[in-house]
């Protein structure tokens, strides 16, 4: 039996009110680890194309990474896996904070919630003791209140709590699962799934040991990571979020992805870095870490009226969506989204979408209860969010997410609804960086979040010497064979070579799979500029921690197994090449960008796709080949697909 593994899964069926503890399958751990691996496997097995995302048979699967809760810095994450009501396909949402380690200490690697409760309930998992409790009195409470009340009720101030807010209760499509201090399982409709099950909250507490195999080795490896982290290159907080503010805005797809920017906007963008930096220095009250993590990427701000709010590096996002260039507004924006349990990025997009429609006359005052929707108006933005969370007036329409809202509104709104596979997508860089658009198009979750990594967004654009130093100092976390692409750099249009894009993209999918299956934060794996854990080191950590003999090649095999299973899942749901290719808004291809950028060509796009599929071992339609599936040990997938008439070549 692998170390670090609790060996027990918990299933709660809210329809029947049953609680089942199940011995885990060590063989599956060997093949898929836990976290994303376990979630994908369960979803494949039980949430077939016949199951609608909003049916009681959809599952809400929380699984901690196999390394979660160990002494390894950064190993504290868990994942929520489900069929997304927004995209209708596979979805995963990563959860930081302290929930994952606590779930393991309670004795469980994976929690599966199935069914649907007739009335609001919450779960209280106190080690071996598991209860489904009435939550009628919690309905309508915001996440902070809910956490406080639940902790009081279970008489344990150390219980870890996740819950939904009003948005989740109201089945808002972009509702989140909130954990507090800026941690949530945010994108893809997690909160809607939880709300649809009438599950308000899950509280967990435990005191079980998490065992480690090779003690001394794991300790030494962890100290190596700590040493890397303690260097000044790796403290996120000192690389002020203000920098990202500027970068984020520079790349921002203003005016609901139209990219329009007047001179006034440009002036405000220029001014923004100093403004943000001043604000942060003055108002940041603390830097927060998740379990066992000293990166402190979450920054706490005090809002005199309404308490503490947590931001990561993206306070610029509300500015892009609303053109309100005021850090205090960003904090307010984050706070109101957290309060309702609403995805910040999707909320911003929906606001931008609504204002855009109004400015174009597609929405009128009649639709908005008399509210005049305009850019640069903080009250309008916050009022729209409130309406969305409460499903009031125009908010009820927008609460279905941009894709569905556009179809309810009609009148050409569909043309202005920029989504990727129906999902509201991150409004920064999509139009300006072809390789980023490519990553989004081909992600297994229709999302950019943290996918772009710093290698492409920052390091690739540094001078040659800096790139060489980067590799020399050991920060290059990708496999050795990709080094040469970094050294080569981008061309004069800031575009990396096509082969590099495909190779990195292929790797990133694997790296993400490993991060989410081990529970290690992607900041340690490749997202942050100075990632402390290369794939080789990860393999060592896995071996030392679990006692399973996993070298780099084996880690890659596991990663590919997960990637291919997820792809197969989506293929089984009907996803094909066309869905990837066309997922990017068409004006990305139509746009004439300023020099030195070049226009994106459909041919180039198709060729990139071909090459990427080839590297992944998928056919031209994006279906994993038989060979690929067999090599990944996924013969049961082949069988299932074939039974459904999908023939892998």
């Amino acid at each position, binding site marked *: 039996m692998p170390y670090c593994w609790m060996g027990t899964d918990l299933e709660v069926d809210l329809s029947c009110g049953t609680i089942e503890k199940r011995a885990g399958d060590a063989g599956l751990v060997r093949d898929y680890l836990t976290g994303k691996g376990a979630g994908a496997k369960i979803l494949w097995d039980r949430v077939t194309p016949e199951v609608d995302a909003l049916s009681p048979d959809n599952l809400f699967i929380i699984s901690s990474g196999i390394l979660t809760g160990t002494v390894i810095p950064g190993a504290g994450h868990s994942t929520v896996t489900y069929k997304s009501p927004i995209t209708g396909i596979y979805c995963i949402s990563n959860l930081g904070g302290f929930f994952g380690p606590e779930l393991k200490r309670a004795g469980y690697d994976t929690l599966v919630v199935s069914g649907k409760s007739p009335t609001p309930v919450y779960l209280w998992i106190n080690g071996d003791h598991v209860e489904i409790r009435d939550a009628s009195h919690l309905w309508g409470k915001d996440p902070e209140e809910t956490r406080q009340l639940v902790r009081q009720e279970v008489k344990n101030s150390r219980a870890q709590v996740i819950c939904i807010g009003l948005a989740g209760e109201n089945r808002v499509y972009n509702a989140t699962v909130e954990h507090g201090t800026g941690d949530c399982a945010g994108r893809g409709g997690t909160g809607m799934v939880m709300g649809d099950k009438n599950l308000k909250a899950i509280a967990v507490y435990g005191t079980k040991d998490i065992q*480690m195999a090779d003690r001394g080795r794991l300790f030494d490896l962890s100290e190596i990571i700590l040493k890397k982290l303690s260097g000044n290159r790796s403290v996120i907080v000192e690389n002020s979020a203000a920098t990202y503010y500027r970068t984020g805005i520079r790349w921002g797809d203003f005016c609901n992805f139209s990219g329009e920017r007047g001179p006034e906007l440009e002036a405000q963008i220029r001014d923004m870095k100093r403004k943000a930096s001043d604000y942060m220095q003055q108002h940041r009250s603390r830097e927060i870490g998740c379990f066992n993590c*000293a990166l402190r990427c979450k920054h706490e701000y005090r809002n005199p009226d309404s*308490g503490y709010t947590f931001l990561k590096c993206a306070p610029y996002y509300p500015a892009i969506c609303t053109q309100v260039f005021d850090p205090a507004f960003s904090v307010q924006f984050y706070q109101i989204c957290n309060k309702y349990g609403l995805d910040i990025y999707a909320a911003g997009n929906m606001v931008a979408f609504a204002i855009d429609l109004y400015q174009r006359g597609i929405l009128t005052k009649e639709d908005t209860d008399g509210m005049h929707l305009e850019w640069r108006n903080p009250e309008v933005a916050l009022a729209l969010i409130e309406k969305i969370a409460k499903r009031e007036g125009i908010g009820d329409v927008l609460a279905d997410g941009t894709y569905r809202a556009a179809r309810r509104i009609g009148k050409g709104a569909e043309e202005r609804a920029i989504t990727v596979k129906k999902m509201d997508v991150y409004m920064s860089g999509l139009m300006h960086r072809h390789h980023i658009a490519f990553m989004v198009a081909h992600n297994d979750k229709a999302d950019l979040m943290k996918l772009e990594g710093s290698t492409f967004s920052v390091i690739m654009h540094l001078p040659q010497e800096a790139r060489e130093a980067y590799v020399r100092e050991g920060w290059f976390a990708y496999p050795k064979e990709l080094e040469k692409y970094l050294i080569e750099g981008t061309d004069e249009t800031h575009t990396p070579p096509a082969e590099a894009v495909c190779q990195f993209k292929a790797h990133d999918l694997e790296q993400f799979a490993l991060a989410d299956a081990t529970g290690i934060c992607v900041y340690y794996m490749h997202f942050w500029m100075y990632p402390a854990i290369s794939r080789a080191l990860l393999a060592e950590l896995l071996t030392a921690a679990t006692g399973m003999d996993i070298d780099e090649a084996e880690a890659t095999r596991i990663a590919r197994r997960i990637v291919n299973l997820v792809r197969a899942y989506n293929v089984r749901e009907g996803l094909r090449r066309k869905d990837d290719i066309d997922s990017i808004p068409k004006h990305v291809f139509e746009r004439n960008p300023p020099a030195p950028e070049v226009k994106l060509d459909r041919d180039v796009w198709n060729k990139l796709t071909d090459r990427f599929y080839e590297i992944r071992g998928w056919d031209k339609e994006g279906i994993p080949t038989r060979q690929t599936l067999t090599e990944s040990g996924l013969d049961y997938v082949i069988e299932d697909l074939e039974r459904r008439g999908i023939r892998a070549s």
Partner: protein
Amino acid sequence: MATRKIKYINIDADKCSGCRLCESICSASHADPPYSLVNPGRSRIRVFRDEDNDVYIPVLAGPYTDVECLGRNTVMVKGKEYGECSFCRASCPSRDLFREPETDIPLKCDTCESINSEPLCVKWCLSKCLTFEEVEEEVEEETPAAA
């Protein structure tokens, strides 16, 4: 004058990021065999977190006591409220802190003396919330108590 060494683990609560790595390394390093497990419940340092009020206070386990407090108290410092046990180091019956899960054996910070190390919670605290200091302190010569 005789002297003795007092070991101080100083806590700058303003710097605590709440990550609880100190709890992990403490429980791991004091485990038998060493580093065989992680379990904050076995840690001799615990972080009091009240996320809603920006309270993050690492507390080192102090002596064991077999009674609980009859009267409790919360402390407000600089306008911020700290819960009844936020600053308390005691291993006591009114909470499961600083007692081994299941066995209930009291835990007490030994500044890593038992494992012949500098305090590992300090070493592993990258937020520099915890710092270590050793002070040579004069002690009064013990005068034998009258019989």
